[in-house]
């Protein structure tokens, strides 16, 4: 039984990994398809799609919009979220439970409700939908995730380090920028990457608040009815390779460091 169980979990997990990877491989393979108009049937290998990505109009523009929205929303959400995370761990204040609930609720709200709510508010306030409203919406749903991520890092910080800084006559701002902030930076970077990824791939909330603007996911959604151009696969694959490279570097360097530490210990 025991040997069988060990063997079974390797097979089961292997199959699960393959299952997870099938659509990814499919998307990447079809970025090399020599498709004319619709990218459904395999017609042969070509590099044209990769070399002339911006040939299919509006794909690149949609991609650019997504990058811009992701960047601005990430900066806003990371700044506001980091401030709240520090306050939550370090300070006592009234209405603490209400604040915690307010941060938690957006994560427990289905996206379609967030999207419809913001759209209803923009409608009532007479705010025209566009890039601005998309950025406001994205900042909102990224904010809670930033707070949770950075908060864990702040909670894990050893207060003795800051005390040491104060003992050495560091001013509060020196202590913050030379000790606290650099120690928090990995958490802040992780939160920023998470925000960007959430923003970049969001479709549902965007669709309610985009007006006539097109982001990369909304381009794909609209194009789905008549066939996705292979250039969309190129962009998605390119982003995938870049992200995977970043994550692999981070993961392997962390694993290698753990191993070195284990050996040294």
């Amino acid at each position, binding site marked *: 039984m025991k040997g069988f169980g060990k063997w079974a979990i390797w097979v089961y*997990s292997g199959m699960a990994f393959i299952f997870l990877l*099938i659509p990814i491989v499919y998307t990447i393979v079809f970025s090399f398809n020599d498709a004319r108009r619709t990218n459904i049937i395999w017609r042969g290998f070509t590099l044209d799609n990769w070399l002339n990505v911006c040939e299919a109009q509006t794909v690149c523009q949609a991609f650019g919009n997504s990058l811009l929205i992701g960047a601005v929303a990430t900066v806003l959400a990371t700044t506001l979220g980091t401030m709240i995370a520090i306050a939550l761990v370090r300070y006592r204040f009234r209405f603490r439970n209400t604040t915690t609930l307010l941060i938690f609720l957006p994560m427990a709200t289905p996206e379609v409700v967030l999207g419809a*709510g913001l759209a*209803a508010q923009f409608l009532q306030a007479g705010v025209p939908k566009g890039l601005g409203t998309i950025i406001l919406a994205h900042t909102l749903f990224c904010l809670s995730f930033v707070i949770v991520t950075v908060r864990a890092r702040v909670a894990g910080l050893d207060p003795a380090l800051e005390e040491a800084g104060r003992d050495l006559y560091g001013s509060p701002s020196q202590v913050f920028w030379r000790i606290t902030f650099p120690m928090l930076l990995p958490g802040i970077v992780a939160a920023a990457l998470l925000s960007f*990824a959430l923003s970049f791939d969001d*479709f549902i909330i965007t669709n309610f608040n985009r007006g006539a603007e097109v982001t990369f996911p909304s381009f794909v959604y609209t194009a*789905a009815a008549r066939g996705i151009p292979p250039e969309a696969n190129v962009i998605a694959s390119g*982003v995938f390779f870049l992200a995977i490279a970043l994550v692999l570097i981070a*993961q392997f360097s962390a694993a290698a460091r753990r191993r070195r530490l284990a050996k040294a210990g």
Partner: protein
Amino acid sequence: MAFTAFAGQSQAAEPAARRRSPVALFLLLPGIFYLVLFFVTPLLSLVITSLQEPDPVLFGQFQNAFNWQNYVTVIETYWQQSLRSIGFAALATLFALLIGYPLAYFIGITLRPYPLLQALGLVLVIAPFFISFLLRTLAWKQIFATEGPLAGLLSSVGILGPGDAISGTAFSVIFGLTYNFIPFMVLPIYATLVSFDLRLIEAGNDLYGSSATTFRTVTLPLSAAGVLSGTLLTFIPATGDYINASREFLGSADTTMVGNVIETNFLVLQNFPAAAALSLLLMAFILVLVGLYVKRSGTEDLL
């Protein structure tokens, strides 16, 4: 990691020495102001919109009123789609758990002696996040397509009769939901299992517990927080999802979910009160469910 948000374990480690200071206000106010302005007031806007009635003069316009009949109407009209959403999401959550738990166990415990393989396994689980959600779902649609490889195989075996399709059925929608939310299930469970003390399993074995008994009485209860947060992180977005069930993706007119109804009413039919009423009902349902679920599981401190 944000995926442990629902697990609520990190609470204990916080310093007791919190101070009162005006700095706290400075740090909190901008973000709280943002949340109030773009989360609380939109919910209030939804409440106001959901009670509006058609303008008697201008066609297609609505005026503020207290027309609570809207709620009755949407329940009467869309109860089927609403129940279907809950059913589909529940099944997808169940399947995601059946696939996700062993996978999380494998990465967190089985692969522990091999740090590099463990890192790779984690990357493979996160990998779907890095490729567009919509393109991933479309890839399944094309794999399932009538002229595609799978449909050919199934109809030659006779499982698929002539005129039957895989895409556009309840099966394909639940399949898509399961696929898309597996990482949300794996990551929180992995987070609880990765720090799991293996000596507890040894202790269970020393006390003559079989592998199955040890798993049931030791490992599973200790990973319950991860299972709780994983099921919530899967169920909540799956209930409101309208991409998988959309006609252009894995669904058809027979698989419409509540998200599709809200989208159509808001963006196509411009029946804002109906969309708002349904949104609020959906949110109320989710909140009640989360509340009950969390209370039962005894994890009260969510953040």
